[in-house]
């Protein structure tokens, strides 16, 4: 059986409304109960932020730092696999410092790979209905953790793209300067697109199986990566050159992984057009479970799972099935809810009460 990654300890200070939170979670199941606005989502967001250095609510660092607080800080110890690793993070509105075992990681994959978790939260409905960047982000979450150099490629690509677009927006445009970014965009962009296509192909069967499991009987989910970018760096560069006049007219780079999408279909039609609210939730959840399965397969370690407000998301029967499926996997669970009755679904869970930015074991 694959070893499971587990958070052994989490300390958070000055993040959203969380103030001096220290949690020692159970290796298996953890339930966080609290009324609205007490800090449940913030707690999961903090865990995921340490792991990915991004907010799953799309928040900026200014929005995350506690009101009236100068700096947010977190420490997280993750066990499982080979060694335990200690992640430390401090940030304020302007700067961020993340270390793993006391050092800034040399490669992105070392950091992200050792802190692999999967989140399911209410805004995940937007995976199906929202803008393409959320779906690209689903793929990137996995790839930064399993492909050495992917995180670096994403960053360099974003930087080169920003610079090229700034040049295209200028009053006078020097084509030599614009073209100076093309080889980099081609090199990083084609690598990103190749990796994303490969991953989408891998996610597809896993998402289908998960969707069947959590009751989407009779209808088939399909996902496909949609891109205008060639996967060969040479052809990509030619495509960029061909698109120059269009790019110039639109004052932005029109080709590349930043413009791509993952098309989600349900019974052959666009899911965002035809899936009901409950079906949309189930599709989003199936995608997250597929994320978990592929991460496990590619990395050889089972990620831990953060489920925010899950009772409001699915009906009782589906929730029960979901928990049955998860229980069979041995992943560490962090489940938040406003409804103390959810306890019945996780009878062995360690219980915490979340209240006014504090988290205490019961």
């Amino acid at each position, binding site marked *: 059986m694959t070893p499971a990654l587990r958070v052994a300890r989490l300390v958070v200070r000055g993040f959203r409304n969380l103030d001096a939170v220290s949690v020692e979670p159970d290796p298996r199941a953890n339930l966080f109960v609290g009324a609205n606005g007490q800090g449940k989502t913030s707690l999961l967001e903090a865990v995921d932020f340490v792991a990915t250095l991004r907010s799953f609510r799309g928040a900026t660092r200014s929005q995350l730092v506690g009101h009236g607080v100068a700096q947010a800080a977190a420490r997280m110890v993750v066990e499982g696999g080979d060694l335990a690793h200690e992640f430390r993070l401090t940030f304020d509105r302007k700067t961020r410092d993340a270390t793993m075992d006391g050092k800034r990681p040399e490669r992105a994959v070392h950091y992200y790979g050792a802190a692999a978790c999967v989140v399911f939260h209410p805004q995940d409905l937007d995976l199906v209905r929202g803008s393409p960047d959320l779906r690209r982000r689903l793929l990137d979450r996995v790839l930064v953790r399993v492909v050495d150099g992917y995180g670096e490629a994403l960053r360099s690509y974003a930087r080169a793209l920003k610079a090229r677009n*700034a040049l295209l927006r200028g009053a006078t445009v020097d084509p*030599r300067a614009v073209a100076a970014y093309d080889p980099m965009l081609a090199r990083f962009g084609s690598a990103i697109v190749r990796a994303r296509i490969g991953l989408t192909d891998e996610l597809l069967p896993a998402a289908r199986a998960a969707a069947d499991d959590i009751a989407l009987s009779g209808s088939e989910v399909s996902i496909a990566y949609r891109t205008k970018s060639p996967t060969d760096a040479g052809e990509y560069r030619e495509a960029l050159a061909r698109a120059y006049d269009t790019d110039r007219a639109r004052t932005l780079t029109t080709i590349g992984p930043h413009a791509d999408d993952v098309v989600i279909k349900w019974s052959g039609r666009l899911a965002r057009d035809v899936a009901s609210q409950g079906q949309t939730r189930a599709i989003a959840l199936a995608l997250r479970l597929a994320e978990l399965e592929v991460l496990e397969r590619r990395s050889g370690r089972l990620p831990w799972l953060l489920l925010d407000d899950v009772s409001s998301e699915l009906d009782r029967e589906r929730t029960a099935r979901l928990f049955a499926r998860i229980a069979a996997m041995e992943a560490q669970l962090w489940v938040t809810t406003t409804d103390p009755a959810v306890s019945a679904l996780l009878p062995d869970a360690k219980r915490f009460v979340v209240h006014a930015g504090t988290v205490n074991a019961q």
Partner: protein
Amino acid sequence: MSDDDPIGAAVKLLARLPGVGEKSARRMAYSLLASGPQFAKALGDAVASLPERVRKCSVCGTYTGRETCNICSDPQRTDDILCVVARPWELDALERAGSFRGRYHVLHTLLDPLSGLGPEQFPLDPLLARVESAHTSEVIVATPPTVEGEATALFLAEALRPLGVKLSRIASGVPHGGDLEFVDPITLGRALEGRRGL
């Protein structure tokens, strides 16, 4: 305000130096106080006299105490090959590697439109003029392997191409995203040997 809070004022200035955050600036200020007035005075004088005693070499642009630097006035070095670097300390790193016998050109900047350094602001003309007048036959672009460094190299390659010089880029050995400054001399020597055409 500096009257009431001389430490705070010093911290503010120190924190403007690259790589120095508020925290280390504060440590520096306290360390200066602790090490006594002589050291602080010597440091202050050394820093204060820098702009008077050091200027840019009139030929290559690196910092020197004279009109032209040692390298530019060295008759043993060849004018055939010109190595373009972004920063003076990158020139120093290449010199420590010790395998290069040509001349240098220091840009003092990189193409970086996001920081307001677009092609119009880029100091291209002095380089072009120098390559033409010195009858240079080969130009090595040794800008760092970062997004800005790569873009600068390609931009320079396009600008130099009409002059018909051989163009190359320092290749392997220098890690991507790395800082030329921190590469050991051996790696850098190999990087210089392993230059590839642009």
